[in-house]
């Protein structure tokens, strides 16, 4: 490259130098020619002038002949002589055109002839002036003409001679110029040619180098590619075969080249297939790669799965094929491994879920006994210190049970075992139940707790109430847990999906410490607590929100959070439900509070808001403080005592062991239950004498023979507890430890109720139930399933077997009492 450049520079310099010389030469020649032309033209001019002047000299004399006036004649004569003088002058100027010796000679000849003529002319002049006209004419015609002709001849000779000489010289000069021009042209042309050739050579060399570089690069790529690459021409003959291909097919490149690709890389049975495939690829878009999965063959005949990515391209009007071959053996193996790994992982996951589920179940069974025993102990009339211990025991057990339940829940949800149990329920009841669960903690912290349901929210819903309550409870307990002051408010809105279904959006707003933005994404991960210190402070394993989120999704909604650190958090939980009944109606209100004037003296906050909303809904009129007359006054328990003529209902904190309910005539406990508020207002206003008893109902006492109960439970402890609970309720029960025993007992005696544990060794509860019912006693005993795991499938199986009622384990006294109370009513009307 550099060499060509130098060469070109040298050539350019030489060409320039030569060009300068030739151009100078040409210029000189041109100047010479110019000078020559000028000289010649001057010479010719002079000769022409001479020719003209001499004739003029003679012509003027003729004029003189034609006048008789001496003065005029003299004028003509003078004219003639003046012209005469100019001839002399012209001759003197001969040097100006640098005449050749021959011309010089001619000029001398002319001068002689002219002088000879002038002698005659002078004589003629004299004769004219002397009026010897005929003589003068005769002289002029004879001698004068002769001499003048001589002059003319000489001039003509001179002229023709000069002209031919000039022509020759001009021709010479022209020749010279032409030659110089030609030389210059040749030089320029050769320079051009040299430049073009130089450029061509340089370009060619550069292009060649570039091509070689590209070639080398491509070669490198072909070498480096770990996969086989084979190129063929249109007829399928191999033109390129890279090292990877050599390795893959165990054929050397030299062997492979120019042979048919199919016979080289495919087993016998697939030959012909590739060309068909390729032909179809031709018809498709030419540049896109075409993938073919096929079986390849090595030299020894060993076969392996491979994938051909075929690209077609043109090389000098010929269609070429390039195949990129992937050995699928490894890929297939990898896929297989992956599948196995996935299966293993899934199995492990299932095993984990199963394990969790089993463990939870196993944990729950002994807990069942502990909870039951604690319940009974609490009612055994122990002395104060022991009672305290029992209460502590009960609290811890309940917490432990909740934890185990959570674990079970979570593992079930994750295992996809959770199924929704759709029931008809009152939304406000569900919310109030959840609020009640956190009531004590909120009361201890003096947190205001309340809820507001928008008027257009349907009162009765069909959904999985227990799951909804679970989520609400979870969110509420978090809110209460993490708020030290202020309030926790729950607000419900509804969006109709269609005629039947609504999406309910529950916002739970707290005034707690809030959550930092960067921690929000971690919030719904299981076993994650945002702050390790909160673990110690608040307990829990961090499953609550994870479960809630999964449950929200399961319920056809979502769970989101919006939080500002230091201000509070808002969790928004939505779920889908079927609306069953008109909006806004709170059920079981048979009285009307319409028109009642209620004055509220409540601190602003969620409680006041809730009460106002309820009063509005009931048609009562909230009156201002300044208005004198009212029927009822609602006041905060912490507010100043009021002197009022109207009855005052105090909104009080729930009783705690160290703080009893204020002794006021009318009160409602926070969080306010709608029914309680309604009752309190109605009673205070004198519209009803109905008042709910506080505290809640005591346990029902059944007559010993009210129900014939058979208790089937394999676990001794649990059976013992259940038996004690039944005794607490005043019932004596028969016991059976196995399914077979139960069947035997049932055969001996007809029971009203059989409490059947489902999971028993040997004959399980379902089978036992089936056999007992198969006895076709009349009336058939009511079969109650006691189970810790109730899924929809379980439920269906239970119902199929004839178990119509479910009692979750560990069995709680209240729940047992409720179930039995209903049964007493139906069995013994």
């Amino acid at each position, binding site marked *: 490259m550099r060499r060509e450049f130098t060469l070109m520079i040298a050539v350019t310099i030489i060409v320039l130098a030569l060009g300068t010389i030739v151009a100078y030469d040409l210029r000189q020649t041109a100047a010479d020619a110019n000078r020559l032309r000028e000289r010649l033209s001057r010479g010719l001019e002079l000769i022409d002038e001479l020719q003209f002047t001499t004739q003029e000299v003679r012509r003027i004399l003729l004029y003189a002949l034609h006048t008789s006036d*001496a003065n005029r004649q003299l004028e003509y004569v003078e004219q003639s002589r003046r012209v005469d003088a100019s001839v002399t002058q012209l001759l003197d100027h001969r040097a100006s055109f640098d005449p050749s010796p021959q011309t010089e000679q001619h000029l001398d000849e002319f001068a002689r002839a002219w002088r000879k003529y002038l002698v005659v002319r002078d004589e003629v*002049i004299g004769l004219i002036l*002397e*009026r*010897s006209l005929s003589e003068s004419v005769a002289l002029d015609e004879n001698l004068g003409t002769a001499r003048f002709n001589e002059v003319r001849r000489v001039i003509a000779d001179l002229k023709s001679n000069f002209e031919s000489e000039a022509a020759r010289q001009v021709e010479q000069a022209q020749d010279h110029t032409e030659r110089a021009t030609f030389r210059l042209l040749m030089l320029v042309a050769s320079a051009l040619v040299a430049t073009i050739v130089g450029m061509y050579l340089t370009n060619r060399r550069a292009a060649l180098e570039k091509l070689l570089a590209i070639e080398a690069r491509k070669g490198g790529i072909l070498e480096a590619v770990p996969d086989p690459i084979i190129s063929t021409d249109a007829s399928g003959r191999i033109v390129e075969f890279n090292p990877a291909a050599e390795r893959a097919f165990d054929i050397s490149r030299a062997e492979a080249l120019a042979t048919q690709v199919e016979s080289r890389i495919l087993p016998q049975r697939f030959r012909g297939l590739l060309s068909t495939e390729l032909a179809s690829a031709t018809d498709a878009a030419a540049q896109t790669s075409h993938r073919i999965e096929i079986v390849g063959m090595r030299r020894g005949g060993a076969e392996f799965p491979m994938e051909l990515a075929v690209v077609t391209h043109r090389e000098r009007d010929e269609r070429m094929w390039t195949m990129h071959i992937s050995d699928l053996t490894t890929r297939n193996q990898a896929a297989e491994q992956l599948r196995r790994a996935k299966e293993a992982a899934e199995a492990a996951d299932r095993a984990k879920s199963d394990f969790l589920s089993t463990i939870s179940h196993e944990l729950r069974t002994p807990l069942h006994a502990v909870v039951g025993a604690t319940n009974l102990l609490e009612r055994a009339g122990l002395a104060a210190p022991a009672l305290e211990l029992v209460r502590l025991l009960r609290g811890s057990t309940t917490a432990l049970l909740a934890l185990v339940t959570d674990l079970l829940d979570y593992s079930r949800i994750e295992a996809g075992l959770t199924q929704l149990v759709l029931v008809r329920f009152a939304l406000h009841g569900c919310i109030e139940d959840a609020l009640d669960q956190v009531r004590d903690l909120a009361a201890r912290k003096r947190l205001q707790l309340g809820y507001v349901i928008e008027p257009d929210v349907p009162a009765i819903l069909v959904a999985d109430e227990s799951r909804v309550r679970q989520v609400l409870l979870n969110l509420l307990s978090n809110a209460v847990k993490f708020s030290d002051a202020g309030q926790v408010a729950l607000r419900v809105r509804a969006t109709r999906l269609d005629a039947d279904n609504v999406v309910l959006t529950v916002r739970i707003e707290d005034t707690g410490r809030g959550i930092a933005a960067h921690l929000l994404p971690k919030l719904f991960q299981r076993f994650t607590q945002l702050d390790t210190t909160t673990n110690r402070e608040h307990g829990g394993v961090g499953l609550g929100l994870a479960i809630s989120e999964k449950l929200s999704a399961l319920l056809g909604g979502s769970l989101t959070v919006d939080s500002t650190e230091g201000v509070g958090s808002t969790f928004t939980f939505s779920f889908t439900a079927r609306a069953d009944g008109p909006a806004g109606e709170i059920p079981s209100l048979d009285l009307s509070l319409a028109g009642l004037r209620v004055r509220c003296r409540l601190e602003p906050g969620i409680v006041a808001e809730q009460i106002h909303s309820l009063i509005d809904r009931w048609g009562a009129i909230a009156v201002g403080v300044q208005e004198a007359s009212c029927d009822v006054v609602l006041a905060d328990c912490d507010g100043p005592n009021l002197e009022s003529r109207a009855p005052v209902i105090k909104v009080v904190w729930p009783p705690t062991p160290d703080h009893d309910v204020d002794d006021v005539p009318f009160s409602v406990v926070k969080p306010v239950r709608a029914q309680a508020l309604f009752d309190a207002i109605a009673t205070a206003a004198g519209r009803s004498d109905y008042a709910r008893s506080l505290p809640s109902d005591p346990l029902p006492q059944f007559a010993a023979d009210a129900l014939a109960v058979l208790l089937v439970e394999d676990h001794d402890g649990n059976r013992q507890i259940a038996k004690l609970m039944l005794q607490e309720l005043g019932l004596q029960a028969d016991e059976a430890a196995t399914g077979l025993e139960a069947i035997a007992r049932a055969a001996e005696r007809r029971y009203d109720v059989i409490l059947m544990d489902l999971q028993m060794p040997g004959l399980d509860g379902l089978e036992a139930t089936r056999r007992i019912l198969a006895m076709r006693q009349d009336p058939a005993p009511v079969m109650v399933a006691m189970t810790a795991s109730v899924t929809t499938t379980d439920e269906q199986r239970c119902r199929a077997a004839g178990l119509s009622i479910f009692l979750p384990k560990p069995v709680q006294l209240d729940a047992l009492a409720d179930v039995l109370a209903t049964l007493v009513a139906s069995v013994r009307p």
Partner: protein
Amino acid sequence: MRTAAAALAIIAAWFAATTPTIARAQQTEPPARLAVIVHQSNPLANLSASDLRRIFLLETQNWPHGRKITVVLREKDQNEREEALRLICGMSAVDYDRHVLFQTFRGAAADGPRSIRTASAMLRFVFNAPGAIGYVHADEVDASVKVLRIDGFDISDPRYPFTLVPPRKGRPLEAP
């Protein structure tokens, strides 16, 4: 007064610059002479006044060497013609013209004299015509022509016969 004097002085100075030469010439230079001129090639050098008169009166028509004589005069209304004819021929122009008319009518002469308008033309005419004879004032002569002696007297000789009398002012051109 002073201005008028200055103006007069200027006018006087102008006259002094122009007129005194004429005055001086009239006073200091000798009276002008009439030179008789012929062609340089003419072999004749001297001519008697009578021969000259005969030539001018067209009575002698050829030179001694044989060439025809061509007399050249000034134009008819010019003083030079008048004074030359009076000097050479002793007659007025009118008489001379009558004489020439008579001579040609008679056939004694083929042509009359040639008439030329100026002195320089006279010189050039004589220069061009070998047989010509003419006259100019002595101070107008140049080398192109030959001045004849008259009666053996050179023109510069005081005895040279043709001395011109300056014409008087207001004098009519025509002789009475």
